[in-house]
C-alpha cells in the first residue's frame, strides 16, 4: 500500500496542513499544562520541604521513583483508574515526570541564595514571605528556569507517547497514521515537529531567563 508513494509525500503534507497544525497545538497545550501544573506542585513541595526538613528524603524519594517508571507502563497503570483517551490519564503521568527535575532545581536554587543575603534581608526587616518572594525566588530564578527547560523538553518527548492511549498530539501522526499505515511521511512530520517544538521551547525559555535575570549575565562577565 506504500508502493508508489514517495518517502516524503509533499502532497499529503499540503492537503493535511490544518490537521498537522491542530496536532501541534494539542501538543503544546499538553506540554504547557503538564509543566505548569508540575511547577505549582513542585513549588508547594519545595516550600514544605524547606519548612519541614525531614520531608526532604521521602519527597525526593517518591518523585524519584515516579521518574523511574517507564512511561508506557504508567499510562497503562492509570487507565483502569482514570480511563483511556482521557486527558487526565495523560496529564497525571506527564506531571509526575516533571516533579523530580523541577523540585530538585527549585530546592537547589533556593539553597544557592548566599546566607549573608538572607541575613541582611532579615536584619533589614523582611518578613519570611517577603524574603521568599522578593529575595530568594528572584535569586533562584536562573536555576529554576534551567529546570523548567529540561522538564519542558522531556515532556514534549513524552507527549508523543500519549498517542498510544488515544490522546491527540504530534504523536498521533506517528502512531495512528505513520505506524498504523506504514506511512513514513507522517512519522517524519510528527517526529520532526516534536523536535522543532523542543528546540524552540528550549531557546525561548533561555531567552526568557536572560530577560528576567539581567543581573546573572553581568555577574558571569564580571567575574
Amino acid at each position, binding site marked *: 500500500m506504500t508502493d508508489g508513494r514517495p518517502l516524503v509525500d509533499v502532497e499529503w503534507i499540503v492537503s493535511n496542513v490544518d490537521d498537522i497544525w491542530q496536532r501541534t497545538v494539542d501538543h503544546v497545550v499538553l506540554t504547557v499544562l503538564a509543566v505548569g501544573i508540575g511547577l505549582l506542585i513542585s513549588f508547594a513541595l519545595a516550600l514544605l520541604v524547606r519548612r519541614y526538613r525531614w520531608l526532604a528524603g521521602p519527597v525526593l524519594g517518591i518523585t524519584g521513583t515516579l521518574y523511574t517508571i517507564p512511561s508506557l507502563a504508567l499510562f497503562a497503570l492509570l487507565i483502569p483508574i482514570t480511563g483511556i483517551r482521557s486527558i487526565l490519564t495523560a496529564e497525571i503521568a506527564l506531571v509526575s515526570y516533571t516533579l523530580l527535575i523541577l523540585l530538585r532545581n527549585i530546592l537547589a536554587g533556593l539553597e544557592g541564595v548566599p546566607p549573608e543575603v538572607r*541575613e541582611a*534581608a*532579615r536584619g533589614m*526587616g523582611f518578613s519570611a514571605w517577603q524574603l521568599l518572594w522578593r*529575595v530568594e525566588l528572584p535569586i533562584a530564578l536562573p536555576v529554576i528556569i534551567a529546570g523548567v527547560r529540561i522538564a519542558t523538553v522531556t515532556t514534549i518527548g513524552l507527549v508523543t507517547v500519549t498517542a498510544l492511549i488515544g490522546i491527540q498530539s504530534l504523536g498521533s501522526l506517528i502512531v495512528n497514521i505513520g505506524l498504523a499505515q506504514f506511512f513514513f511521511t507522517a512519522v517524519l512530520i510528527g517526529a520532526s515537529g516534536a523536535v522543532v517544538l523542543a528546540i524552540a521551547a528550549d531557546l525561548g525559555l533561555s531567552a526568557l531567563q536572560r530577560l528576567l535575570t*539581567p543581573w*546573572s549575565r553581568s*555577574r558571569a562577565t564580571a567575574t
Partner: protein
Amino acid sequence: MSEAGGGQATTGAVVSLERVTKRYGPPGTPPAVDDLTLTIPAGEIVVLVGPSGCGKTTTMRMINRLVEPTSGRVTIDGEDVMRLPAVELRRRIGYVIQQVGLFPHLTVADNVAVVPRLLGWKPARIRERVEELLELVGLEPAAYARRYPSALSGGEQQRVGVARALAADPPLMLMDEPFGAVDPIRRDRLQNEFLRLQARVRKTVIFVTHDVDEAIKMADRIAIMRRGGVVAQYDTPDQVLANPADEFVERFVGADRGLKRLSLSRVRDMPLVEPLLMHRSDSRPDARRRLAAAPLPYALLIDDARRPIGWLAEDDLEGEGSIGSHVELDPPTCVQPETTLRDALSAMLSSGVQLGVVVDERDAVTGLISVDAISETLRAGQPAPAT
C-alpha cells in the same frame, strides 16, 4: 542638633541593655551573654570588642532581635524592643554586616531603596533619597545607580551597604565587622570615610569587631568583652589604654598600648613651641646672635609665604653677608594639625632634626612640636582626645 548636613536632622537613640542574658542551650548551660548591663548614649559610636566567643555579636543581634534574649530587657529610647513586631523594629535600625549581603538581583539604587520600599515611601521620595545617599558615601549616582553589585569592588560594595543601612534615616546603626573583609589600606579609607560621615549624621552606632586597633580608632566608647559574655571594661578608648581595668584588658589591648594612645591624640591637641624664623635676606652675624640667644639649637628658614625651607644650625650661619640661597639644609618634617601623634612621632624620629614643623592648609608655619613634648604627654597620661 550638630552641623547636620543634607537634611540629616535625626540624632541617635539611647540604647540600653538591662541585665540581659542569652543562653543557647537549656538552663544550666554556660550563657553566651551573662547578665549584661550597658547603656549606649545617643549619637556615639560604641564598639563591642573581644576575642571570638565573647558574645559581642550575640549582644548586638539581641538589639534588633535576630537573637532573642533569654532574660533581661533591651530598650531603644526607653521603648522595650520586645513590644514591637520584630520586622517593624528592624526597619528602624540600620544593619551592616561583614559580607555586606547586597542583593545580587537588584541594582545599586534598588539595593539602597530596599527599606524605604518596605516602609512604603513614594517613588519620588525614594529616588531623591537614593541619590542623596550615594553621594553621601562617595559614589557618583550617575555612574553607580544602575550597576549590579557584581560589577562593584569590595570597597564599593561596602559603601553601598552603608548607604542601604542609612536609607530610612534610622537613629541606630548596628555594624557587625563591617570592614573586616577588605584589605588594610581600603579598610583604613573606609574607616575614615565612615568617621567623617558619622560626624555629619550623628547616629548611635553599635560596632562589633575583634580588632583592637579598629576599636580604638572608631570608638567614642569601647566595651571590652571576655568569654562568657561579660564586659571587662566599658570606657573611652583613652581610659581603656591609660587605665586598663584588669590583666585581661591589659593583655587584650596589647603591650604597645602607650603607642596606641598616641593615635588618639592629634598634633592640634599639643602645646606648640615658637620657632626661631629666619629669611634668606637676614644678615648672618645678626642671625648667629639670635640663634645663640634662642633655647633651640636650630632656626627655621622660611620663604616670603612663611613656608618652611630647611633647618639652620650654627655652622650654616658662619661668615658675613646675608643667608642667601646657596646653603644646603636639612629638610624639615612637616605635620598638619590633624596628624595623629603616632604618625607625627614616627615621621620625626626618621628625620635628622627631631622636631616637627606644624603647617596650616597653605603650608605656612604655625609652630613646632618636639619628640620630648610627645613623650612627656605619654608619661603624664594627658591629652584629652578632641576628636
